């Protein structure tokens, strides 16, 4: 199980894990739960630039299509190929199933700690 204490979260429901110069981005447990069974994902290519606040991936659940937004402006250094054939891993292990790895970070939005994010999700539920 991933250690959420090391992770940061965006208000658009992505998690971010910093490891030196490299940064992995995935979907939060809350997001995968809201989406339901994920059956297809469309990720950017290596070398593409992702931009803070902009969509970088299409996530298709059986119910609908939604997007993942990058909390960071950076360059994609790797994509999680395993998810191309097994997108359902996002449902079963969202915090291990990173979507993209980026480097050359230029800009990062204000991110929440795991506790702050949990509170944020609870408040959105009540609203």
């Amino acid at each position, binding site marked *: 199980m991933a250690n959420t204490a090391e992770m940061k979260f965006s208000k658009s429901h992505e998690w971010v894990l910093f490891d030196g110069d490299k940064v992995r981005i995935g979907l939060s447990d809350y997001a995968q739960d809201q989406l*339901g*069974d994920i*059956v*297809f994902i*469309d990720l950017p290519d290596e070398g593409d630039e992702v931009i803070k606040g902009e969509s970088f991936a*299409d996530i*298709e*659940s*059986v*119910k*609908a*299509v939604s997007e993942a937004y990058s909390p960071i402006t950076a360059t994609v250094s790797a994509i999680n190929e395993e998810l*191309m054939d097994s997108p359902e891993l996002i*449902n079963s292990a969202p915090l291990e199933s990173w979507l993209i790895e980026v480097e050359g970070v230029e800009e990062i939005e204000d991110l929440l700690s795991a506790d702050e994010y949990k509170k944020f999700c609870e408040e959105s539920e009540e609203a």
Partner: protein
Amino acid sequence: MDLKTPLYDAHLKAGGKMVSFAGYMLPVQYKDGGVIKEHLAVRNQVGLFDVSHMGEVVYEGKDALANLQYVLTNDFSNLEIGRVRYTLMCNKNGGVIDDLLVYKCSAEKYLLVVNAANREKDVTWMKQHLFGEVEFSDQSDRFVQIALQGPNAKEIIGQLTKEEEIPKKYYSFVEDANVGSVSCILSRTGYTGEFGYELYCRPEDGLKLWDLLLKSGQKYGIIPCGLGARDTLRLEAGMPLYGHEMTEEITPLETDLSFAVKMNKKEFIGKQAILDKGEPKITRIGLQLTERGIAREGANIYFNGKKIGQITSGTMCPFINKACAMALVEKGIVEIGSPIDVEVRGKKITAEVVAIPFVKK
């Protein structure tokens, strides 16, 4: 404010993720299930749906049949008591107001089951066109409707119901069945492409019936299923859905539902407009993606580079594990096996025209 069906609390207790649908709060899926698991339960074992949002109206009286013959497209003159028939209701332009089921309870009494989202529109239209000796009533609030769908449904009903009270033929029903001491209409109908039943009981008995079916179904692998699975099941079974494959702008012939339109009937609303339009210029097709992706409603489709129509519904079909879709396209251009392109968010992905239903069991 959305309405709650009498089973609302049972859904919450079972971990139902409630969403607003056609004026009701209904489960889209359950916590321990999920669309894929619920879908597969119906295909392989059995699933239970709360479909109380559907509307029920009754025509009763000497001229009940004459009214139905005029306001609906199918022919009910040869419908037997205890049988059910699918039909469409058209506007004067031949567009579809709704698709519905007609249950013949007696020579002078018919129960009609209509789509929840269309109920008010349907009732207004039906009332506007009443004639002769007939009593019309909207009885939607008097029924809880539960769908028990899947190959194991027979065993569950068999445990709870006397043999002679179980409808044997597809599209037949027993009006006064006793299912585990709950009085209900028991019909061999459904919207999943599977063997199954639909049960209509009084609201006050709804929870009892729901719990009884779940309990009796335990050893047969029953799970409660939500709207999500209902949609993927109906699509995989190639069943059209109002608002997608049918609209007030499309005639039933254009969406390949001519089997429910009896043009040899003397008169019905929409007949002249359908006749005036002549041979339909569009048709409904099924398609399966041959490349990864999902084609959703509204996506344009192309054959040899030329746009020929649009997707009306599309999803990943869990049982066949393929992305499938239905589409309305220009008639006479493609056939089964034709390669086509679907434009999904700006990218063209390949697909093939296939026969409907997508699932063959």
